């Protein structure tokens, strides 16, 4: 402590370097009024002119700022939808629909890790010839689902958009919603990390969506950790609440789909950990309120015949490849029977693209089956994930 004489007066620590500038201290005789440089208050027309000038300066400042944000966003936007520097691999897969031929997809599946583990568009194609895509990243929020939907509807006209039921029960606050809206307006906020990987192409090139994901957003995962399904979908009258903010975003997505001639449907993929009857009840109630369909693959007529001893890779949380095959085949059936999605397998416009995807897919299945290991509950099993990113042959 310093050796100053004790004093009862508080030290004015406001008088440190960086203290307030002269214009603050020299406020006019009537604070709040515009003044001349000498300090005499302005009146009447002169005062209005001064206020008007301030307003114009403020508007100009904001406009130039928005321009700066816009310019930065253009530079930071990836110029390819493929694996460019600074973009997370998961996002590349989820956005892979950008590389698909325009207006070629019949259905989109949007959701989180439940979706990308359970829904394989290639299996759906094999079972019924529908062209679909899975747009999902791990832990995806409904706000990002909305972003993906908006992006997709610019280049695709699917008949059906299936949103994962799990998304209804991942709450978010206004902060997240606002951030998501701003990120959609100014991609710099989402892409800023690309500063580590910017190239000349980012500054001077234009966007080319030249990357095609042969797995169509699906993540092929192997390994078996059986689930305890003793309490799975036990009946109850409880209704899990879907937050108001979630419902309002869903309503927005429903309207976006309708404007594009699509139908939004809530679909819950099989999971013993993430899905239970109260959530079923909550999702049904929300779907009724929003006037959209709800299909539950866990229970009732649409239940998929999952064998919880062999079809899950993490004790019931997510399905493995075996479970995905069953789920995808069920979805293929639903798409064609209920939504009239045509069979494109003989359509030359689709054949080359999708047959190549099937070949690639089958090669990976062979590889995966050879490497997969079966274990008992509690065993530390190696789950092998095949990388979703690769160049088409």
């Amino acid at each position, binding site marked *: *402590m*310093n050796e100053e004489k*004790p*004093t*009862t*007066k*508080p*030290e*004015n*620590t*406001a008088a*440190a*370097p*960086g*203290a*307030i*500038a*002269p*214009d*603050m201290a020299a*406020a006019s005789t009537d*604070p*709040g*009024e515009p003044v001349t440089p000498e300090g005499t208050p302005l009146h009447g027309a002169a005062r209005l002119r001064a206020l008007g000038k*301030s307003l114009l*300066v*403020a508007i100009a*400042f904001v406009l*130039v*700022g928005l321009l*700066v*944000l816009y310019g*930065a966003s253009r530079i*930071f936007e990836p110029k390819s939808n493929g694996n460019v520097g600074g973009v*997370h691999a998961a*996002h590349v897969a989820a956005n892979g629909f950008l590389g698909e031929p325009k207006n070629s997809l019949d259905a989109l599946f949007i959701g989180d890790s439940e979706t990308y583990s359970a829904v394989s568009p290639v299996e759906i194609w094999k079972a019924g010839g529908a062209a679909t895509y899975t747009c999902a990243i791990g832990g995806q929020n409904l706000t990002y689902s909305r972003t993906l939907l908006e992006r997709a509807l610019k280049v695709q006209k699917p008949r059906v958009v299936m949103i994962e039921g799990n998304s209804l029960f991942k709450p978010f*606050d*206004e*902060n997240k919603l*606002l*951030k998501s809206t*701003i990120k959609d307006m100014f991609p*710099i*906020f*989402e892409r*800023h*990390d690309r*500063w*580590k990987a910017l190239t000349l192409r980012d500054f001077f090139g234009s966007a080319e969506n030249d990357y095609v994901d042969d797995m169509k957003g699906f993540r092929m995962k192997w390994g078996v950790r059986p689930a305890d399904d003793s309490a799975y979908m036990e009946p109850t009258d409880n209704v899990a609440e879907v937050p108001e903010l979630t419902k309002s975003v869903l309503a927005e997505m429903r309207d976006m789909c309708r404007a594009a001639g699509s139908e939004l449907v809530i679909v819950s993929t099989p999971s013993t950990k993430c899905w239970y009857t109260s959530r079923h009840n909550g999702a049904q109630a929300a779907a009724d309120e929003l006037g959209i369909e709800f299909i539950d693959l866990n229970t009732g007529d649409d239940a998929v015949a999952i064998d919880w001893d062999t079809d899950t890779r993490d004790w019931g949380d997510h399905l493995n490849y075996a479970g995905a095959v069953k789920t995808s085949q069920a979805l293929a059936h639903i798409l064609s029977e209920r939504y009239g999605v045509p069979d494109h397998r003989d359509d030359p416009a689709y054949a080359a693209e999708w047959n190549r995807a099937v070949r690639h897919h089958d090669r990976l299945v062979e590889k995966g089956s050879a490497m997969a290991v079966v274990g008992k509950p509690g065993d530390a099993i190696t789950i092998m994930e095949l990388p979703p990113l690769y160049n088409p042959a």
Partner: protein
Amino acid sequence: MTSYFSFIFLAAFLPTAVAVYAIAPRRARWAVLLVASYLFFFWLSRELILALWVSTLAIYGTGLGLGALIRQRDSAVKAAKSGKREIRARFARKMKIVMAAGLLVNFGLLAAFKYLHFFASVIDGALGLVGITLNTELPVWAAPIGISFYTLMAGSYLIDVYRGTVAADRNLGRVALFLGFFPQIMEGPISRYGQTADQLMAGHPVTRANLYAGTLRMLWGLGKKMIVADRLNAFVKPVFADYTAYDGGIIALGAVLYTVQLYCDFSGTMDVALGMGRIFGVSLPENFRQPFFSRTAAGFWQRWHITLGTWLRDYIYYPVSLSKPLKKLTSKARKRFGNRYGPLLASSAALFCVWFGNGLWHGAGSQYIFFGLYYFVLIVAGSLIEPTAVKVAERLRISRESAGYRAFQIARTLVIIVVGELFFRAEGLDAGLAMFGAMVCDFNGASLVDGSIFGVGAAGIGLDGHDLAIVLAWVALMLVVGLIRERGVSITERVAAWPLPARWALWYTLFLAVIIFGAYGTAYAPVDPMYAQF
């Protein structure tokens, strides 16, 4: 909304508050600030706003009570022909009781919210030593935001009224705004009534100059927190959470980077707070003054968290040193130990109270008490060694004002600071001691240059070369700014004199820098302002 750094706060709440404030008539502007402050508090702490209201009403009521007693005393003294001293003493006793009641309410709330479990565990430990075990179940309460900060401000108001430094305020709105002003509420600065109360009520207009300077300062603070502090967290957190996995070299680097992180986080938040104050025409006190240029540990605490230091000095150190028991101790010690060491013993007793208080204020944990006493020991030792150091320097003909000696002092102080912060951050005193031991005994410089630093933390989360580069660049920039400020130059004033295109370019550059280099988004875990936990 969790802090000043939430998107919704910066993009929605603050601009709305400023706009409403600017449009409001001058006489109503204080009310706009008060409503905004309560909305902010409620948004963060919900029903715990009741604690703030109780504190506000308590100091308002107690202040008025003290004011009344002061008036009565003054008229009694004036009217009396003799026995004025007795009258003063009588009133002083009454006033002390009233003030104590007010302080008890405020600090009692603070103790209940923050220290209940700590005190209980200390008591349990002490009783356990004599074989008694109590099995009390204590409730766990989340603390209202900023309670450690506004409680000190409440205390300072009461003591200032008692001392006659400020008059008791009849205006409840002013008292409420003083205590609850939202730019200060999360992490201070801890201001005095005489400094800010009138400014808050003045309703200064939102001028272009203040808007520019305020937002520029906020951007500077955002840069420090989001570019440096949040980025370094990816390295610091795993090192402190799992220190046994790392050698002394990595741990030492962790301590250094934590010190940088803490400074950038806290001073960055202060920049945001002071910038916001500036927008509303309120000059809040500075909390930092280039602390890493300090030459001594004592000097450090005059440059770091300045308002806490001055609070402890004015409301603990001086009262304790001037108290009767300590004055008796000083004269006894003078007789026993001579004129040099005698007063030192007494001032050390006062210092002990300060440093114990400093440690305890930071948290209910043994490592915080240790942190406080660490500085106590160093500062007292410094005073003891001082005359010897002067003699030694004379003998060796070293000028203690030379650049070389000053550099040595700064370097030595930096080491002291970093070690102190190691203990501060460690997850318990045991961990701190273990980490310190590893730093000293298991130091391996090789791990700092062979790339192991990039392996710290979970895959894909730790620092890479780019991260280190941007941290170094921003720290270099801070060093330059610090050197300029150390010379007494007001950067705000200098920049205000620049032509408009240059001013705008600077603003947009900082703005873009924060957006581009900020450590936010999917690749980063969010980091709340660090001092808000205290």
